[in-house]
């Protein structure tokens, strides 16, 4: 029972920080009103347009202490591509900043000036979803092989794995 009350206290204390981040974000960027959601303790989701992305992103890094990039997720959402940047800070709170880019022109600014480690995640977006990253330093592709066709992006919803030919099936 002791542990239960301790848990409860922890929850209450931690949610204060989430609420504070939410309020500060909305106060600073009024257009984020209704776009910042706390899904549970230590989890915040923010939706921001591509134009305003850098402002919000820089603010979270410089003012709220989100200094660790967990990863970047790319999503195929039909008409658009979604990108979620998962950042965390020292208290274990993860903020998920979602933005989207049009499918016909999937260009995304690199975040390597903020997080040098983001390079490999951005290469993954290039290979698997066909994003164009402005501008990635030169380097080898990841994770697809060098002879992978340049117009096939496996994580797009319209990409289906090809059936193996009968002779390939024998070896599979």
């Amino acid at each position, binding site marked *: 029972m002791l*542990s239960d009350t301790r848990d409860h206290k922890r929850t209450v204390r931690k949610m204060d920080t989430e609420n504070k981040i939410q309020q500060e974000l909305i106060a600073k960027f009024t257009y984020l009103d209704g776009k910042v959601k706390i899904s549970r303790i230590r989890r915040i989701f923010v939706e921001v347009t591509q134009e305003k992305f850098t402002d919000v992103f820089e603010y979270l890094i410089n003012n709220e202490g989100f200094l660790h990039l967990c990863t970047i997720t790319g999503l195929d959402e039909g008409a658009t591509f979604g990108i979620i940047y998962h950042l965390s800070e020292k208290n274990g709170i993860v903020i998920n900043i979602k933005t989207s880019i049009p499918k016909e022109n999937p260009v995304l600014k690199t975040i390597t000036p903020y997080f040098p480690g983001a390079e490999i995640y951005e290469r993954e977006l290039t290979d*698997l979803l066909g994003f164009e990253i402005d501008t990635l330093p030169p380097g080898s592709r990841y994770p*697809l092989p060098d002879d992978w066709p340049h117009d096939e992006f496996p994580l797009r919803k319209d990409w289906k794995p090809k059936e193996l030919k009968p002779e390939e099936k024998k070896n599979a």
Partner: protein
Amino acid sequence: MRESKKFRIPIGPQHPALKEPESFSVALKGEKIKGVDVRLGYNHRGIEKACEQRTYIQDVYLIERICGICSHTHSTCFVQAVEEIAGLAVPKRALYIRTIIGELERIHSHYLWLGVAGHEIGFDTLLMYSWRDREVVMDVLAMLTGNRVNYGINCIGGVRRDIDETQTAQVLKAVGILEERTKYYIEVATEETTIIKRLSGVGMLSREDALRLGAVGPTARASGIDYDIRQKDPYAAYAELEFDVITDAHCDVYGRTVVRLKELMQSYRIIRQALKKMPQGQLTVRAPRKIPAGEAISRYEAPRGEDVHYVKSNGTEQPERVKVRAPTLANIRTVKYMLRDRYLADMPIVIAAIDPCFSCTDRVVSLNDTANKKREVIEWQKLRSYSIEWYKKQGIDFTELNRKFKNRD
């Protein structure tokens, strides 16, 4: 510096002496490393795409097979995300069992690492010892779950097997044996001068670089970063258990060794508490086949560091998107910095010290002589022998220590 003096060595991607495929291309000036290019992806199996085409239940088993070492890591991380979206209140007993299996997995992974590290520096008696001891924990895992690897203990909403009193007694007995052995290894690592000399100052990664590059797990903690998901973003039963986050200020391979060894002691502490505090009750709650639309991000402190899973659902039996980021992918970039201006002979141990797991993320080195347009592929085994011989010439020789240890046991 004349450009023509740089020499490029390819190591990888396919070689029988390597445990997993990846490719390093090392630019050398004399014996010093001037730059490292890493090419990953040789083991990319398209699991994220495959998850979208399968049901959540199938995905639990598929995701468990991302990695043979930290299989419980990935399956727990995934089910946590799905459970969060579905709003399932997982029974406490199940959370405790997940924690116990998770810590047993960390023990077997760290013991495995200790052996590999010993092997790479030529201290093979340590490899034999630690891998023998590792069998103790492997047997415990097999007893509890039915398998030595890929335990299959998790299901959406709980766990598949209970831990009974006889098993508890056996786990406690094994933990006792392992704790004694770990104390001995800590003594060896902190008192044997050959080990200290071989590992100190090798693969330096400053706190600032570790933060900037996003290093995770023991690699980050050995650079003084006090960050452990189990404590900062607790999952399973960790919020109710007491343990210390081990950090070290050495910032080198020696520090990474000490952190992992001391973490083992904390794992024993966690397992003992968990077995004692584990409440009685159900093992699972019923999970719906169709998961309501939503999204969740789940984090897990794997033996190698922070593992991240993002799951997005669309109301059907199959997920809309599953994103996995294994800890090695976050740590691999640090290797470039650790190796810069160091000797080629340090390469095996520096790479081994991040405890890379490329099946999770996704090995061979190539040398390029730009002057003569010559390209040479060096085998890992050859590089390892070269490294051991090179250090022998510097007076760091494990022959005596190997003999001494053999005689001790």
